[in-house]
């Protein structure tokens, strides 16, 4: 993670049109934007598309970023929102999706790791907004304050939503 001064410099320079600074930001944040989008949309191609679209939007708005230390949560929120938009339309246009990666064998390890097939099925029971919030917290690792700032919510509101979504996931996973 970039320190505050570097992050601020990069955001300012990128906002003024510096391609190299923008490339640094992409290097720093793109992976988490794609991963968050993937949790929302559940499709590799759409996730990558969402992140790329998010950069186009972010590029225009970089000048509005007041707190560069929160640029990651801001970018991930844009990417998750783009993924949500693509998910809403992609579900009606998808003909068939074939997993190229063979399914992982179910694990029954003592630590009780959650099976990814069960998780994927449980996530489909949540709507894209809910999956986006979970991705920001558990995939990107943002805290409730950063998420709240990015989404225009209160931190306590984020925490209560997360608790509710986690409970729902748990219920779904218990059924698996």
């Amino acid at each position, binding site marked *: 993670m970039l320190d505050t001064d570097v992050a601020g410099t990069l955001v300012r320079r990128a906002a003024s*049109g510096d*391609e*190299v600074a*923008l*490339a*640094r930001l*992409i*290097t720093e944040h*793109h*992976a988490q934007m*794609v*991963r*968050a989008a*993937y*949790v929302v949309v559940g499709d*590799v191609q759409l*996730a*990558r*598309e969402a992140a*790329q*679209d998010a*950069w*186009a*939007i972010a*590029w*225009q708005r970089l000048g509005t970023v007041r707190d560069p230390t929160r640029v990651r949560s801001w970018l991930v929120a844009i990417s998750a929102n783009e993924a949500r*938009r693509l998910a*809403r*339309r992609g579900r*009606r*246009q998808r*003909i068939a999706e074939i997993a190229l*990666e063979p399914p992982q064998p179910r694990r029954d390890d003592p*630590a*009780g*790791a*959650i*099976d*990814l097939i069960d*998780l*994927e099925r449980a*996530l489909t029971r949540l709507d894209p907004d809910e999956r986006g919030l*979970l*991705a920001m*917290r*558990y*995939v990107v690792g943002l805290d409730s304050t950063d998420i709240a700032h990015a989404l225009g919510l209160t931190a306590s509101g984020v925490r209560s939503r997360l*608790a509710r979504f*986690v409970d729902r*996931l*748990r219920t779904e996973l218990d059924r698996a």
Partner: protein
Amino acid sequence: MPDHNAFESRLADAMRRYAQRVPVDVDALALAREIADPSTHDAGHGRRWWPLRNARTGMGTTRAIPDLGAAAVAAALVVAIGGALLGALLFAQRADAPGASADQPGTFSPAGSLTAAREGHTATLLPDGRVLVIGGGSRDDGHALGSVEAWDPVSFAFSPAGSLTAAREGHTATLLSDGRVLVIGGYDGGDQVFASAEVRDPASGSFSAAATLQHARSNHTATLLPDGRVLVVGGWDGTGQVGEAAI
């Protein structure tokens, strides 16, 4: 609470493993250059536009324009990346552009802006050369649009051209031999998929209800047959793909 925390920890681990299944490789500098390329900006509108290579299924549509000014032969209606934020732009592709050839038919340039940014709309070339843009999804609130607008090839401008009886996106719009436009199916931007159809009267420009499909569907095809009937094939009914065709 300890039990909840333990589950939360397992969930976080699983979600990270799940998300790591997606490849995240990117050529950062190439992407940055593409995004920052000033040639993709429409200075006249202070908006950003992209070469047509960034158009994508469901976000734009193309219609050939047989006589556009001197010699332009093709136009593409494209919702630029960014949708409502960036506006929607029409790009006209001129076949007589310098260096144009069959393989490289020229470049795209801005040719007006829709009054409402939209995706999942249709664009129908009318006999008088105008392009009728119908419905589509709003990027602002996710709802379908009922508005219709027409693009004028002389002024390169869009203007309101009536309203659908039901806001819809993912529909089809088929120009009939008598100049009417048949709008079929689609969905409301949420979960409601339409079986309804409506038709536009070329004289009044108004839409009225037409026959109803036996099977609601969106993202289907509708093809005008030589005998004047319209063949509707496939699509999505809200729960799965539609395997039947209808006339």
